[in-house]
C-alpha cells in the first residue's frame, strides 16, 4: 500500500511554530491499546534531559475502546499547569480525528499513521502534516496482533524522538529500567524504537520546529502522582487501618497504600503486617470502619470521591458529634451525581465543609501538588487525633491521577505522632477527673480514653445523641447548647493548627488580590506572571485549609477587590469565605472554571484581564490583555 508523502513545509499556510523546550504535545489514543506506557516514556525522557514537563491523562470512564488522550506540556520555565492548545498532535485514533485536528494551534504539527490514505479534506492547510506508515511497518515486522499493537506505540516514540530531537539514549535507558530482569522483552522494544527513529531520519524532515534541548531545569524534583504521595503520607503519618470502596479517581490512593505498606510495613521479624486494608462493601462501611478504628485509638483513613462522600455523610456527622478522629482523602471529580467521573473539579468544598445534617463543620486541607498531598495526609492524621474530628484532604483528579513534578518529599525523624488528648491508665489511677466532654484546657478539646484502658475508671458510652460533659445521655437544652458551643471553640482552636495560607506578593503594590487553592496553583502562578507582563499586578493568597485564619480575612481587607479562583460552578470557596469568615461578598469576584478540564493560565489571565478592564481601572502599565482562551 503506497503511503502518502509527507507534505512539504512550504505548503503550510501559517508559519510553522518554532519553539525550544516550550510546547504541548498531545497523544490521541484508544483506551486499552497499550499506548500509556509508551507515552509515559516520551514524557520521562524529556524530564531526563533536564526539561520540566507536566503530563495529563484525559481518559474516559471505560476500560477498552473509547478515546483517551495524554497531553504533555514541555516547559523549560517550569510551568506545570495545563496550557491549553496543542502544538503537536499525535493522532492515533480515527474516532477523534476531526476534533483532534481542530485543537492544533495554527502553524502546529500533526503526526499520524498514513498506512491508509485519507482524503485531502480531512486535513488542515495551516499545519504541518507528518505521516508515517505505522500499521504497514508493524504488519511487515510482526505477526502477533498484540505485538503489532504494542510495538506500534514504541515505533512512533522512536520517530518522535528523532522529530523533536529527544536523546534516544534516555529512552533506551528508561526502557532498560522498565524491563530490568525481563531481558527477553528489552531487545524487541529497543529494536522497535530504533526502527521508528531510522524511518524518521530517512524519510521525515527532522527535526521539526519544536525541539527539546538538554537543560538543567528539573533539579532535584521528583515525579509522582498525587494519589501515590497521599498514600505515602498515610504510611508516614502512622495510619494502620485503611478501609475503602473503589471509585475513580481515588482508588489509586488505597492501591498505592497497599504497595507502600507491603514495602514498609511488614514486620521483618514476624512477617506480619502493621497495617490492615479492607475493601469494604460500600462507602457506608468504609467510613464506618474508619470511625470504629479511630474510636479505638488506631489511625485510620479512607479515600473516596464525590458519590462516596454523599454516602458517608451520616457517619461524618456522628464522628463530628461523638468526636472521633477520621481522615478522609477526597479526590474530587466532576459532579453532581456520577457527573464527569474521569474529569477534574473542586466542587465538593461545601459538601465536605458542612457534611451531614444538623450544625456541622469540618476541617479541610487543600494540597496543591503531590508534595502537599504527602504532607497534608500525614498532617490530617495528626489533626484528626488532636481535634478528635473528621479531617478532609481535598485533592482532585488533576493532582491525584497525573504524575507531577514537585519538590522532593521531606520527613523530620524527630517528628512524633500527635495522638492528641488521651488519658492513660496511670492518669486515671492517679485520680484525675475524667469527663469525656469536659473542656479542661479551654480549647474545646476534651480528653478521651481508649477502650480497654482501665477496669473501673474512664469507661464511657459513645453516642450520636446529646450528652452532658460526662458522656451521659441528656436532652436538656442548656446541656445541648453547652456541648455544641464547645464544638465551636474546638473549631476555633483548629485555626491555629491547620496549614497557614501562602502569599505570593506582586512585584509592585497591588490593589487587587486573588485567592486560590489546590490544583489551581500552577496555572495561577503562571497567570500572575502573565498578568504582570500586561501591567496588572495581583497579590495572590493560596488558602491551604478551612477554617480560615485571620490572614485570609486581613488579605481581603487590604485589597479593593479579590478574585476568588476556583474550579466549580457555584463559587463554593467564596461562599465559605462569606459564610464562615464573614467576608463582605461585594469585595469578592469569582473566577470559575468547571468544564472538567484543569484550569489554565490562559483562562485566568484573560478573565482577570477582562474583569480589570471592566472595573474601569487603569493598570500601572498599559498593554494588550490576554490571548484568546481555548480552554474556557
Amino acid at each position, binding site marked *: 500500500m503506497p503511503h502518502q508523502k509527507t507534505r512539504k513545509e512550504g505548503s503550510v499556510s501559517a508559519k510553522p511554530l518554532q519553539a525550544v523546550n516550550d510546547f504541548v504535545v498531545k497523544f490521541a489514543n484508544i483506551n486499552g491499546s497499550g499506548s500509556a506506557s509508551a507515552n509515559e516514556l516520551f514524557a520521562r525522557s524529556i524530564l531526563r534531559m533536564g526539561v520540566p514537563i507536566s503530563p495529563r491523562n484525559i481518559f474516559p470512564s471505560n476500560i477498552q475502546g473509547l478515546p483517551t488522550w495524554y497531553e504533555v506540556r514541555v516547559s523549560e520555565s517550569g510551568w506545570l499547569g495545563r496550557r491549553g492548545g496543542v502544538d503537536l498532535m499525535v493522532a492515533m485514533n480515527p474516532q477523534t480525528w476531526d476534533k483532534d485536528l481542530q485543537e492544533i494551534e495554527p502553524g502546529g504539527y500533526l503526526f499520524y499513521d498514513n498506512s491508509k490514505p485519507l482524503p485531502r479534506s480531512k486535513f488542515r492547510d495551516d499545519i504541518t502534516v507528518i505521516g508515517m506508515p505505522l500499521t504497514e511497518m508493524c504488519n511487515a515486522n510482526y505477526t502477533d496482533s498484540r505485538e503489532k499493537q504494542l510495538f506500534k506505540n514504541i515505533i512512533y516514540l522512536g520517530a518522535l524522538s528523532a522529530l523533536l530531537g529527544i536523546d534516544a539514549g534516555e529512552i533506551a535507558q528508561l526502557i532498560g529500567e522498565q524491563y530490568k530482569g525481563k531481558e527477553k522483552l528489552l531487545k524487541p522494544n529497543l529494536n522497535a524504537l530504533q526502527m521508528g527513529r531510522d524511518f524518521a531520519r530517512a524519510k521525515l524532515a527532522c527535526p521539526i520546529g519544536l525541539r527539546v534541548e538538554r537543560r538543567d531545569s528539573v533539579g*532535584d*524534583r*521528583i*515525579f*509522582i502522582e498525587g494519589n501515590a504521595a497521599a498514600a*505515602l503520607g498515610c*504510611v*508516614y503519618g*502512622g495510619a*494502620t*487501618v485503611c*478501609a475503602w470502596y473503589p471509585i475513580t479517581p481515588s482508588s489509586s490512593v488505597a492501591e498505592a497504600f497497599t504497595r507502600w505498606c507491603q514495602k*514498609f510495613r511488614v*514486620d521483618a521479624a*514476624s512477617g*506480619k*503486617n502493621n*497495617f490492615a*486494608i*479492607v475493601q469494604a*462493601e*460500600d462507602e*457506608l*462501611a468504609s467510613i*464506618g*470502619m474508619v*470511625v*470504629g*478504628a479511630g*474510636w*479505638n*485509638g*488506631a489511625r*485510620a483513613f479512607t479515600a473516596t470521591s464525590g458519590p462516596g462522600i454523599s454516602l458517608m455523610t*451520616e*457517619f461524618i456527622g456522628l464522628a463530628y458529634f*461523638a468526636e472521633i478522629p477520621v481522615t478522609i482523602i477526597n479526590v474530587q471529580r466532576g459532579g453532581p451525581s456520577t457527573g464527569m467521573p474521569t474529569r477534574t473539579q473542586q466542587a465538593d468544598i461545601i459538601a465536605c465543609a458542612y457534611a451531614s445534617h444538623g450544625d456541622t463543620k469540618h476541617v479541610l486541607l487543600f494540597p496543591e501538588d503531590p508534595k502537599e498531598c504527602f504532607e497534608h495526609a500525614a498532617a490530617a492524621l495528626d489533626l484528626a487525633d488532636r481535634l478528635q474530628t473528621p479531617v478532609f484532604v481535598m485533592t482532585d483528579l488533576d493532582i491525584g491521577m497525573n504524575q507531577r513534578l514537585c519538590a*522532593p*518529599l*521531606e*520527613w*523530620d525523624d524527630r*517528628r*512524633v*505522632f500527635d495522638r492528641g488528648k488521651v488519658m492513660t491508665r496511670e492518669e486515671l489511677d492517679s485520680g484525675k477527673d475524667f469527663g469525656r466532654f469536659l473542656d479542661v484546657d479551654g480549647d474545646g478539646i476534651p480528653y478521651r480514653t*481508649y*477502650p*480497654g*484502658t*482501665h*477496669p473501673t475508671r474512664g*469507661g*464511657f*458510652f*459513645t*453516642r*450520636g*445523641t446529646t450528652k452532658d460533659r460526662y458522656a451521659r*445521655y*441528656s436532652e436538656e437544652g442548656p446541656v445541648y447548647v453547652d456541648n455544641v458551643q464547645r464544638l465551636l471553640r474546638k473549631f476555633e482552636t483548629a485555626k491555629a493548627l491547620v496549614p497557614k495560607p501562602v502569599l505570593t506578593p506582586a512585584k509592585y503594590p497591588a490593589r487587587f488580590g486573588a485567592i486560590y487553592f489546590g490544583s489551581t496553583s500552577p496555572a495561577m502562578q503562571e497567570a500572575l506572571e502573565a498578568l504582570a507582563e500586561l501591567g496588572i499586578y495581583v497579590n495572590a493568597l493560596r488558602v491551604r485549609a478551612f477554617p480560615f485564619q485571620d490572614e485570609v480575612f486581613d488579605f481581603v481587607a487590604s485589597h479593593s477587590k479579590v478574585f476568588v479562583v476556583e474550579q466549580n460552578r457555584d463559587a463554593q470557596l467564596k461562599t465559605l469565605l462569606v459564610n464562615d469568615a464573614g467576608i463582605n461578598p461585594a469585595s469578592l469576584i469569582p473566577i470559575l472554571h468547571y468544564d472538567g478540564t484543569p484550569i489554565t493560565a490562559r483562562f485566568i489571565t484573560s478573565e482577570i484581564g477582562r474583569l480589570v478592564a471592566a472595573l474601569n481601572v487603569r493598570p500601572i502599565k498599559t498593554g494588550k490583555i490576554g490571548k484568546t482562551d481555548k480552554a474556557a
Partner: protein
Amino acid sequence: MTYLAKPRLHHPTLPLNKIGFTRRDYEGQISTLCAGCGHDSISASLIQACWELDIEPHRIAKLSGIGCSSKTPDYLLGNSHGFNTVHGRMPSVLTGANLANRDLIYLGVSGDGDSASIGLGQFAHVMRRGVNMTYILENNGVYGLTKGQFSATADAGSKSKRGVANTDAPVDTVSLALLLGATYVARSFSGDKKQLVPLVKAALAHRGAAFIDVVSPCVAFNNHVGSTKSYDYVREHNDAVNRLDFISGREPIHVDYAEGEAVSVAQHDGTVLRLRKIDRGYDPTNRIAAMHYIQQHQAAGEVVTGLLFVAAETEDLHAHLNTADVPFNTLGAKQLCPGRAALDKLNASLR
C-alpha cells in the same frame, strides 16, 4: 429524659467471680425500655455470661446500631466502653474497632430492623469477613423504637398490633449467617436464660463471627395474638436442638455419662462445648445440614433454637489479613514510620 443514676451499693454478701467482681460490676445504667421487654432479659443473660466467664469488664467493647435493642449496651457492662453508632451500621464500626485492637472482646448488639432491614448489607459482610465478635440480634419482628412498624424479619401473614397482615417474605438471619460463613450460629429466646447464657458464653469464647439470633418479644407492639414473635407463640413452637454445656478450659472437663448423646466441640481457646443432643440426628458441625434442618422446621412452623452450627477450625479477619499480634493502637512511629532515609531513597527513585 435525663440520665438515671443507678444506686451502686454493693451488698457485702454478693458472690464474687474468680477475678473478684460481683454480678453488679457487670451491670450498666437503669434500663429505659418498657417493663417486660424481651431485650432486658437478654441484657441480664449477657451480664450473667460475662460474670460467669470472669471477663474483666473493660476488656469488652460493646457496639450497637440504633433501636430499642441497640440502646441496651448502655444497660450492661457500665465500666466497658460502648458505642451506639448509626442505624444499621454497627458491623462496620465493630470491624474497624476490632482491627484497631485485636485484644478486646467485641460484643455487637442489634435489632431486626437494624440488621435485617437498613443494615442487611453490613450484616452480610461482617459475617463473610469472619470478624471476631459476638453478634446478638434482638429479634422482635418490629421496629420498637419507631412504634411498631413491621421489620424485615416479620413472618409473612403475621399481624401487626393494628391488625395489618405482613405480606412480604421474612429475612431469616440465622440461615443467612450460615450461608455467609459465620462460624458460630445459634438461635435462642429472650425468656430462656438457661439456654441463652451458655450460648453467649460459648460465643464469647469463639474466635470468628459468632451470631446469636434471640427472639425477643416487644411487649408494646408485638406480643399479641397473630404475631409470630410473641412470648406465647415462641414458647409453643420452640424446638430446641440441643442443650449446651459450656466448659471453660480452666475447669476440669465434666464427664458426661450420657456419652452417646453428647458431642464435644473444642474451641481455639481451650474451652469445650458439650452439646447434649435432644434431637438425636442433629449434628451442629455440619453447615449444610444445619441449613436444611432450619428450613425444614421453619416450613413446619417451628422455631429451632440452640446451637445450630459451630466450626471447629476457624480463622478470623486478623488471620486473613496477617496482621501483627499487638494492637495497632499501641504502635508508634518506630514501627509505623519508615523515616527519612527511606524517603530519600524513594525520592531518588522518582526522578
